[in-house]
């Protein structure tokens, strides 16, 4: 098991180094944005968190597909943990996104920000994932149901993004539109560091949480064996 522990330690170390570097660069070193000034710096946390959330859901769906394909039960726990991380990053995206909306347009919520709306839909969808999981007895049946639902989730992401774009024409006339700040060389570098930091954070928390859940399962087995 030593390899796995080393990997966890390595991931945690990489995550913390990258996070500190990313935050420092984003807050102090990155050049001031021409029109948005200091508030543009939220970009360095909002977008990486959003992209990491997508990565979590994709990873959860990949593990779900593996479960349905190979029927090995351990994939269920991995898919569940990845989706769980995805919802945490999703909530963070919603929070940082609404702060950005407050800064840029003075409103805590705007429907015309496509990504924000998409995350709201995904948030509802994946909360239902947990509702489904908690209302089925643990076992192969629950694993299959969760896996199928996770696959639907990843199919829903592009479809509802398209729907939101299509919906803009008649649901909510586009009042605020930002086409993403023009990224100069150094800004792009800072953005990449922050993105790497968030992905490393996901990997690290994911590995730890998975180990914790496996420990729970093993202890339950041990308890049954001893009783």
């Amino acid at each position: 098991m030593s390899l796995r522990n080393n990997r966890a330690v390595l991931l945690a170390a990489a995550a913390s180094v990258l996070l500190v570097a990313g935050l420092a660069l984003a807050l102090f070193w990155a050049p001031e944005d021409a029109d948005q000034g200091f508030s543009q710096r939220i970009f360095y946390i909002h977008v990486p968190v959003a992209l990491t959330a997508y990565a979590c859901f994709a990873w959860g769906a990949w593990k779900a597909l593996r479960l349905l394909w190979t029927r090995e039960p351990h994939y269920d726990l991995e898919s569940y943990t990845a989706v769980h991380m995805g919802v945490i990053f999703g909530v963070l995206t919603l929070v940082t996104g609404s702060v950005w909306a407050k800064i840029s347009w003075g409103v805590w919520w705007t429907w015309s920000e496509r990504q924000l709306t998409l995350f709201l839909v995904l948030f509802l969808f994946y909360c239902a994932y947990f509702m489904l999981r908690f209302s089925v007895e643990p076992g192969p049946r629950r694993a299959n149901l969760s896996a199928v639902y996770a696959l639907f989730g990843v199919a829903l992401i592009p479809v509802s993004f398209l729907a939101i774009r299509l919906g803009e024409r008649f649901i909510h006339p586009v009042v605020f539109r930002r086409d993403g700040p023009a990224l100069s060389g150094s800004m792009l570098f800072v953005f990449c560091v922050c993105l790497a930091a968030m992905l490393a954070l996901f990997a690290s928390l994911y590995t730890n949480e998975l180990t914790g859940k496996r420990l729970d399962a093993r202890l339950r087995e041990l308890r049954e064996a001893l009783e």
Partner: protein
Amino acid sequence: MKRVLRDLDLEVEEGGFLLVTGPNGSGKSTLLALLAGLLAPTEGTLDVDLPRGRIGYLAHEPLVYRELTALENLDLYGRLYHVRERRETIGALLERFGLWEARHQRVGSFSRGMQQRLALCRVLLHDPALLLLDEPYSALDESARGLVDELLRETSGGRTVVVASHEPDHVRPLSTSILALA
């Protein structure tokens, strides 16, 4: 997740007759559901080298629609199991289990014994190679129990049979092997 069956390895040779006994809750029904392919084992391996269409499974519930008549239920299963000469087979089975007169009645109006006999028809409809019977005698009157005995005697040798029952002495003489679950 309650663990029902633990470190059990079991082999049933073709044509054998396995009697599974044990108190209620000892895992008899779970074992049969596993063999039928309804449940997947959480650990270990299970292979029943028979296609799904060759297995007959009698569960606690009759697995028939209460709003449909006996004939309609058997007709549905006959089509799903692609039974040849469906009408004749269904007629013969209903006759044999004394349900011919009640064939147009809704199953909802059947007594528990009649439902069990209909379930037996459903199980034998496609002439299965593996017969899984979970408490076949439950809720049956004297004449129906005779029918089941006759069925078990007639199949031993050709067909593989697994019977789960908590009153085993009735079936013990016919069985080639016995599995007692604690």
